[in-house]
């Protein structure tokens, strides 16, 4: 079972009062384990909508979504929450660290939610922070770190529980191009060494270039795909 994500004929229509806004139409996509894949497309093309649907945060109007062979459509809210907790990592554009938690505590947040043993947790996360280049900054609060450093903590948080898939909505949009390149290096390295599947969205051409597979969205459908 190497297919991590499968979208079949996914359509999403938002209702705004009486107006219907189509966000996705007839999307078919299959993502294999270990892929490093980017969603590209202009603003409003449906990138965020697609990530939300894959992450079980939103339901498609039509079509089905399977994560590791399990159809999300049949899952309860609770099951979806558990799926996110154990199988999916999230990285956000604006980091979204908990402001009152240190780098270490933020990085271990998902492990806390999973009720992992404190000592094991600490060991794992300390090593992980070292790996993302934050050795020595364990006790910094988010406000005491740069954007790039905060995003590294967020990356550490997203992979700490070794999920099957990491979803990242424009993870480099808030940092300069130099930092963006560094973050991509990091994600690529983690993808390679831990074989974690990454799916991220972007409209930065420099970032698109780094993807191993690039899916272009346009007006809610897949316009074309490039594989490198």
């Amino acid at each position, binding site marked *: 079972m190497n297919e991590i994500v499968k979208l079949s004929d996914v359509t999403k229509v938002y209702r705004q009062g009486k107006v219907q806004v189509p966000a996705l139409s007839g999307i078919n996509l299959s993502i294999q384990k270990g892929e490093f894949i980017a969603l590209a497309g202009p603003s409003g093309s449906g990138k965020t909508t697609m990530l*939300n649907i894959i992450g079980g*945060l939103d339901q498609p109007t039509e079509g089905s979504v399977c994560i590791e062979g399990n159809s999300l459509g049949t899952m309860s809210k609770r099951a979806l*929450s558990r799926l996110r907790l154990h199988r999916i990592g999230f990285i*956000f554009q604006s980091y979204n660290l908990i402001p*009152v*938690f240190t780098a270490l505590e933020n990085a271990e*947040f*998902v492990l806390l939610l999973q009720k992992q043993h404190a000592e094991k947790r600490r060991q794992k996360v300390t090593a992980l922070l070292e790996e993302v280049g934050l050795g020595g900054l364990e006790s910094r609060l988010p406000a005491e770190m740069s954007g790039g450093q905060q995003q590294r903590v967020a990356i550490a948080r997203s992979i700490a529980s070794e999920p099957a898939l990491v979803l990242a*909505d424009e993870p480099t949009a808030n940092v300069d191009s130099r930092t963006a390149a560094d973050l991509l290096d990091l994600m690529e390295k983690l993808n390679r060494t831990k074989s974690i599947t990454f799916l991220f969205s972007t409209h930065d051409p420099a970032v698109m270039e780094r993807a191993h597979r690039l899916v272009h969205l346009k007006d809610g459908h897949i316009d074309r795909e490039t594989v490198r």
Partner: protein
Amino acid sequence: MWLIKLAWRNLWRNKRRTLITISSLCFGLILALVFIGLSDGTYGTMIDNAARLGAGHITIEHPGYRKSLATRYTLNDTAPLVRHLNTMESVEGWAPRISGQAMLSTSYGSVGAAFTAVDPRQEQKSSLFIKKVVKGSYLTDSDGRGALIGIKIARRLKVSVGSKMVVTANNLQGEFSGELLRVVGIFETGSAMIDGYVFQIPLDRARKLLGMGDDEVSHLAVFLDNQRKTDRAEQKLRNAFAGIKNTAVLSWREVMPDLAAYIEIDGAANYIFQVIIFIIIGAGILNTILMSVMERRYEFGVHLCLGMSPASLLVLVIIEAVLLGLMGTAAGTLLGLAGNYYFTVKGLDMTLFTRENIDVSGVVLDPILYSDLYAEHLIVIVVSVFLLTVLVGIYPALKAARSVPIEVLRKQ
């Protein structure tokens, strides 16, 4: 455990707001505790004074007496009653009494008055009249002709210590009867009703006046070492005397219904005041927690996104409320107790606010109020303030649990 850590740190994100909330909680609690302490203390003093100027905390009398106040309803054999009273630890003392109506006359005129005939030795320990003697001394022997009279009676009859008076009354046979008395002391309680209407004479003098037998008394006044033990002592005595004919046990509540009613009504007013304070405190806390939750909806969305359960979010906010409540009630209880201690020792001087005597159904209040916070009131107030905080946290907690994760990715 980490939820507590997160909740604790969340509270201190907005230090000022948290401190203001804790202070308001604390202030409300101090106010409530001091207020209740002063009321408890004041009611206690009132009851005790009234009992010691009247027929005791508990009165044992003939069951027919209270309705008719007729002198003929007497206790004939107090020996077994007294024997039992002597075994009870909460009983500080007891005094046999005869009470009735009489006329006091001198050459200047006469006044109608109520007498209490006493055995002076038995009064020593417990009666408040002894402390209220302003001229002469208290009665000494139980068969002399001495009389202790109120200062207003003394003025009206123009008598002083050493003066002679005649007391006349109807005896048990309905005949007119009189005795010569000599004023040995004059008392002043401050209550117009007592000072102008009450006098005391020795027990045996009253028996002669009324034609009563040697052992007959109107009632036994029972004094307790603490007025709060009244109900329990009353119950015990009722049980103990159930088999003795023509013996009724009454508490001060039944003997002085006006005072009991006053305390009940005043207490109800206090209760309403407390509830209002609590509602104000509760509204303040609700506002704080709700605001802090609304501000963090996005953050809660992130938590949900990462796989935190809505139930954990609910618990997080409840813990925040609990921590606020714990800090506020801890500080409020300590300061409230300190305030009570101050007013227990120094008292609150009401002459700062009013110049008049405070007089409740014949009982004059000491113008300095002393606090005496009852333990059960302390516990009830502290626990209910704490529960109020937690209760008030439930609605914001539910709101937090209903945060939507999808908004997170949208808002960027």
